[in-house]
């Protein structure tokens, strides 16, 4: 049994919406917030993947963070996706698993306002020295009207 199959079997009941792109070796799947540290730990320490980057996106019903774990021995990218709410976005930090997540989590807090629980240095990254942005300004968020629709 190869590494990929083992991984999907181990977390079988905790993954939803699995999208496989076999030709290019890309795997996308949804993970609950409480499981992300365990999944990241398995990917980073057991499977030897490297955290390439994370992408935060604002979608119509909330915010989501897509982690891109790259397995350099096979050229595969595993993309666990964690969803969170618009009002109080909070996700568990994976800095305890890899220090490579430190800057990107600060960036996602800066641009999207997602709080990372357990981050050792939860400051802004990019707009920290910009006098036009306050602590509550998150430039990549959409402006929404009263009915929560995109303006």
């Amino acid at each position, binding site marked *: 049994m190869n590494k990929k199959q083992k991984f999907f079997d181990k977390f079988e009941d905790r993954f939803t919406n699995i999208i496989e792109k076999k030709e290019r070796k890309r795997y996308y799947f949804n993970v609950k917030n409480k499981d992300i540290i365990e999944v990241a730990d398995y990917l980073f320490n057991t499977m030897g993947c*490297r955290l390439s980057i994370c992408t935060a996106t604002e979608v119509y019903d909330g915010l989501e963070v897509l982690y891109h774990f790259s397995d350099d021995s096979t050229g595969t990218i595993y993309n666990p996706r964690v969803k969170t709410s618009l009002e109080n976005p909070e996700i568990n930090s994976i800095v305890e698993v890899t220090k490579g997540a430190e800057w990107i989590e600060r960036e996602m807090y800066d641009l999207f306002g997602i709080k990372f629980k357990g981050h050792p240095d939860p400051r802004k990254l990019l707009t920290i020295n910009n006098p036009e942005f306050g602590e509550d300004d998150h430039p990549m968020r959409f402006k929404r009207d009263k009915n929560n629709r995109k303006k």
Partner: protein
Amino acid sequence: MSKCRIPLGPFHPLLEEAEFFDIKVEGETVVDIEMETGWMHRGHEKISETRSFTQSIYLVERICGICSTSHPFACVNAIEDIDNIQIPERAKYIRVLVGEVERIHSHLLWLGLAGHFIGYDTLWMWAWKYREPILKIAEMISGNRNHYGMMRVGGVGKDFDNELIPKIHPILDAVEKKMVMLSKAAKDDPVLKSRLKNVGILTKEDARDYCANGPTARASGLDMDVRRDDPTAYEVVDFNVITLPNGDVYDKLVVRVLEIIESVKIIRQCLDAFSKVDGPVKTEVKEIPPGEGCGRYEAPRGEVFHYMRSDGTNRPIRHKVRAPSFSNIPTYKASCVGIPLADALITLAAVDPCYCCTERSIRTVDTNNNKIDTDLLNISRDKTQKIRKDFLKKAKTPVERIFEKS
């Protein structure tokens, strides 16, 4: 011993982007380093959401002036990944050719500046002299010395002119000869060795923990290269991935010199293939369906990562860009602590963040914010001078050597 704070930046001679380094020193030894970024944040990701897919490629080309084909390369990979678009074989060779020409000139630029910062200006002049013909090749192929504008979704924008093959070969021969000479010089030169060997070591564990990539990771013994691991065009050529074990600045220099020689080999393979492989250079792509795609490319500095999400219109709804320095710069926390201040400069430069030049922006203050007249660049150069002098004292003069032989 009293501690002193040395702020470097925000307009810093070592970085393409303005960044701020807060170096804490005890005597001459660096004990802690903190970083702040954000002065050059231009909001490319947000702008890209308002542009069409083709415009996005041109937009990301302007992120970096030196590795200007890396971002478009990764960007088209990401767009092609959404719909699994295959590109023609000739387009693959052209993409590889442009990418490798860029790698050579980017590595030579770093090599020259690394030499300049340690006060070894001969290396600087050599490296930049040989960079010039490489830029000429780029101009012959694309019409521009930089910002080639070659990448398109489904292929490349411009075909390669086969008549250029006999003009490019002699330039490559000359450059390769000089690079072999340079790699030998780097191995033999005692001053270069004593200045860079065991300086700013990034261990394999640290490199992995900080998710370092590119030559920074390869010099620390991590065997990874996106060109080989996740090829979208590079499967047509044959090359070696250079990996060295020590993780110091010297190894990072040697990795880059050896990579230049590999790149020359790759370009030769492309040139040989052009006369055999004919056909279109672009697949017609009508529309991008809804979906998401990840694209990556091994830039001269490491892995460039692009993520694209499409909703079926002609614009991306999310475009994430990650340049290699984003992962490599945090490794300073591991590599800079515990080394002398004079070595900090070359260690900061060793991961190849682009340079802006001039030492004017370095301002040194003590803990009370009073200015101290310390010039890092000159400290670094003085150290090389001292090593050179000490070495010359020990070395035998030419006259002594003659008598020794007889």
